[in-house]
């Protein structure tokens, strides 16, 4: 029986234990989630009441302008909001924390395949996030070219001179390396370290989601890393890879090339974040319907199909870019084919609920929330795939609403489902279900109010990334909606306080959690909460899939653990 390292530093800070690293990721992610959320509130304030001083915090944040957002500060707000949310909030929570915590436990391993690489991965993320924070305080302020870093706005120092811009790219590059190292561990651990009997057909769906996500990262993140280095060269070494026209120092490169490289990664990124959520939802629906995941194989194959397709549809972000229109048509057709596998696993989710015995626990509520908001996000994606219509709504709030339904709402609910579900295992204490329900109800309400409002203003042509819609005559009728979205956003922000309260209070004095509070079948729930230093005293042996609920022959409960030898005769997976 291994003991944890004695010294504080080796045990809690520079630990190679996947569970400690997961908690480090989780706390970092939650911190940045709060920061990105506050930035969103500043953005919504500016849009609701343009150039008005911000109450309470305005004088502190923008002393130069009497507490109002300035035209120079506004791009920094939305750039940092996007960059922080995607790379330093959602990625650390869903890939960093969920991946690190669940993978070794669920495959029955003592740790990740490469624990030291794992530690390095977190600390690179930490370094990247510190660089990002420093960038706020350098002369010229933080980056303001949008989280998509479109060249040549990003790549020419004539139009974006500040060092904050370089630091943003550097921070992202470090985060990319960190994610790649994490992905290497996830892929290797899931594929090579599975316990005896844990065949690929018996993996929890969460792990499939994490695996596909890691594969996408491994394949496409390096492409954007290369592009980011080229942007840095353009900025500081006088090259012109992505600069053309009068700004270019010599004959110049190609502006569109950057967009291809960026979206070559950028579109898979959507799936990188959503695939683990889909997997988690598949598992949670099964656990809390007390019923095997319906069509497990079809779900796994659908997710694989989407993983493959996601790599070849990036062009639908570029219908107005001046890209060859025939290529655009090909991208449109490829894009709509994604709805086939999506529909299949959606139907499988419904099939899991069908004739189940549904328990509406807090993680289940959030999982159902994902189903609801992802239905909206997915279906509105179809509007964006239609070339002619997309050209009208491209770069408007319709697109913002769409990707917030998929990337913010679904992924956020997924992150909360993960936290509420795994909290007892991670910390050995239970969260308050009452506060959890309240948190879900309010979040659900306000979140839909915010993002559906974005559809409305977007359809009216409200461009994204503009600081003041009242500049335009045609947007005058939309101002009331901006006010509405602003207050709904504040409501959404305030309801997250319930979560923070619940999280901290449960951490300190929540009820002690049993080893398996949810009566779940997968391997992680066979060990104590929190698990021992190296998870399993002996290598577990697996006899069935993770979703053996509602087994008819059983009299002592309705489910089988994956380690239950009776599964050899009773289980069908």
């Amino acid at each position, binding site marked *: 029986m291994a003991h944890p390292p004695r010294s504080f530093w080796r045990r809690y800070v520079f630990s190679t234990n996947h569970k400690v690293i997961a908690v480090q990721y989780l706390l970092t992610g939650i911190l940045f989630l709060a920061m990105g959320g506050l930035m969103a509130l500043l953005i919504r304030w500016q849009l609701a009441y343009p150039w008005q001083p911000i109450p309470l915090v305005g004088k502190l944040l923008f002393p130069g302008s009497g507490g109002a957002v300035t035209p120079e500060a506004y791009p920094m707000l939305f750039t940092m909001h996007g960059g922080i949310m995607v790379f330093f909030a959602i990625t650390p929570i869903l890939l960093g924390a969920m991946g690190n915590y669940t993978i070794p436990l669920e495959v029955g391993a003592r740790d990740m395949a490469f624990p030291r690489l794992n530690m390095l991965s977190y600390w690179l993320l930490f370094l990247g996030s510190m660089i990002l924070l420093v960038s706020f305080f350098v002369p010229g302020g933080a980056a303001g070219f949008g989280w998509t870093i*479109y060249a040549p706005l990003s790549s020419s120092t004539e139009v974006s001179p500040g060092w904050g811009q370089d630091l943003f790219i550097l921070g992202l590059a470090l985060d990319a390396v960190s994610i790649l190292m994490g992905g290497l561990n996830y892929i290797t651990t899931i594929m090579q370290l599975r316990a005896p009997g844990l065949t690929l057909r018996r993996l929890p769906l969460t792990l499939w989601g994490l695996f596909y996500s890691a594969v996408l990262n491994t394949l496409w993140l390096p492409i954007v890393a290369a592009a980011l280095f080229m942007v840095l060269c353009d900025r500081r070494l006088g090259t012109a890879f992505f600069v053309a026209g009068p700004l270019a120092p010599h004959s110049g490169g190609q502006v569109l090339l950057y967009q291809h490289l960026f979206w070559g990664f950028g579109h898979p990124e959507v799936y990188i974040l959503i695939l683990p959520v889909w997997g988690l939802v598949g598992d949670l629906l099964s656990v809390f319907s007390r019923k095997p995941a319906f069509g497990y194989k079809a779900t796994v194959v659908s997710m694989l199909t989407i993983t493959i397709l996601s790599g070849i549809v990036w062009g639908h972000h570029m219908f107005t870019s001046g890209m060859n229109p025939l290529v655009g048509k090909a991208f449109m057709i490829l894009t709509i084919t994604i709805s086939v596998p999506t529909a299949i696993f959606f139907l499988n989710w419904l099939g899991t609920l069908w004739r189940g015995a549904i328990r509406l626990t807090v993680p289940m509520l959030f999982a159902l929330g994902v189903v609801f908001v992802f239905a909206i996000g997915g279906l509105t994606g179809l509007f964006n795939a239609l070339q002619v219509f997309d050209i009208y709504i491209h770069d408007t709030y319709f697109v913002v609403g769409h990707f917030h339904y998929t990337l913010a709402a679904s992924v956020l609910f997924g992150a909360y489902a993960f936290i509420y579900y795994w909290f007892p295992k991670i910390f050995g204490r239970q969260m308050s279900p009452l506060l959890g329900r309240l948190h879900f109800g309010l979040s659900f309400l306000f979140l839909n109010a915010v993002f559906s409002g974005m559809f409305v203003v977007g359809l009216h042509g409200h461009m994204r990334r503009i600081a003041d819609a009242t500049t335009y005559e045609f947007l005058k009728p939309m101002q009331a909606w901006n006010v509405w979205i602003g207050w709904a956003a504040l409501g959404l922000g305030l309801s997250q306080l319930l979560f923070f309260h619940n999280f901290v209070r449960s951490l300190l004095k929540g009820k002690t959690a049993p080893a398996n509070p949810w009566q779940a079948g997968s391997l992680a729930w066979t060990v104590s909460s929190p698990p021992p230093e190296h998870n399993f005293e002996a290598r577990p042996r697996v006899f069935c899939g993770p979703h053996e609920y509602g087994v008819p022959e059983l009299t002592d409960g309705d489910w089988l653990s994956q380690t239950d030898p009776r599964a050899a005769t009773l289980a069908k997976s």
Partner: protein
Amino acid sequence: MSLTSMGAEVFPPDISTTGYLVDRLFWLATGLTGVAFAAVVGALGYFLVRYRARPGRRAFYTHGNSPRALLLTSGLALVVFLLIDVNLAYHDHVAWAVVWGAPPSAREALQVEIMPEQFAWNIRYAGPDGQFRTADDVTTINQLHIPANRPVVVQLSSKDVIHSFFLPNLRIKMDAVPGMVTSLYFQAKRSGTYDIACAEHCGFGHYRMRGFLVVEESAEAFNAWLAQQTDEGPPDLSWGWQWGGKT
């Protein structure tokens, strides 16, 4: 600004000959996906109530891996794909042919070159000789005047970063990319003054990169305006390009 103004029209007023195709596509997509959404949410709600956990209730033990289940899910998915996706893609294809696929001939159309910079729209007309980048060109800033009921072809490039030429009342936009020439065409059928917006983030002044599209009542009114502009002095010849190729 009151809550009553929230009930405004979904789209800004359509002044183009083709915008109705875009709006129609939206309503069709909304109808089709609305049905799918209602079906999903309906099933979800029904299942949550009907199959909620009650004492003694045990779920139906099935893995849903049978060929019948697979046939059902993939069959339904395929039906959804054909009825919604393919249907919409077809209508998009048809609309594309009109909105983007049939540029007017050079003879009948008014040709305009636009070269935006941070944060203004430089607009150039060919002038009497019909040739661009000559001394009789007419250049304006942020003022795009066009005659009603005549096709207009715009070619775009950019002086510095990417901008996006967005005409919300005509339901079209196209990026202006440095080092490239992109183009779009349209025809306005209602006179008046409308907004030109920049739809691609181009720097801190992005939000105020507003131009004005002035649709003149008649060709005469347009020509009169154009003649007035030439009096202001020689146009800026540092930009502009010769028209060639297909448009």
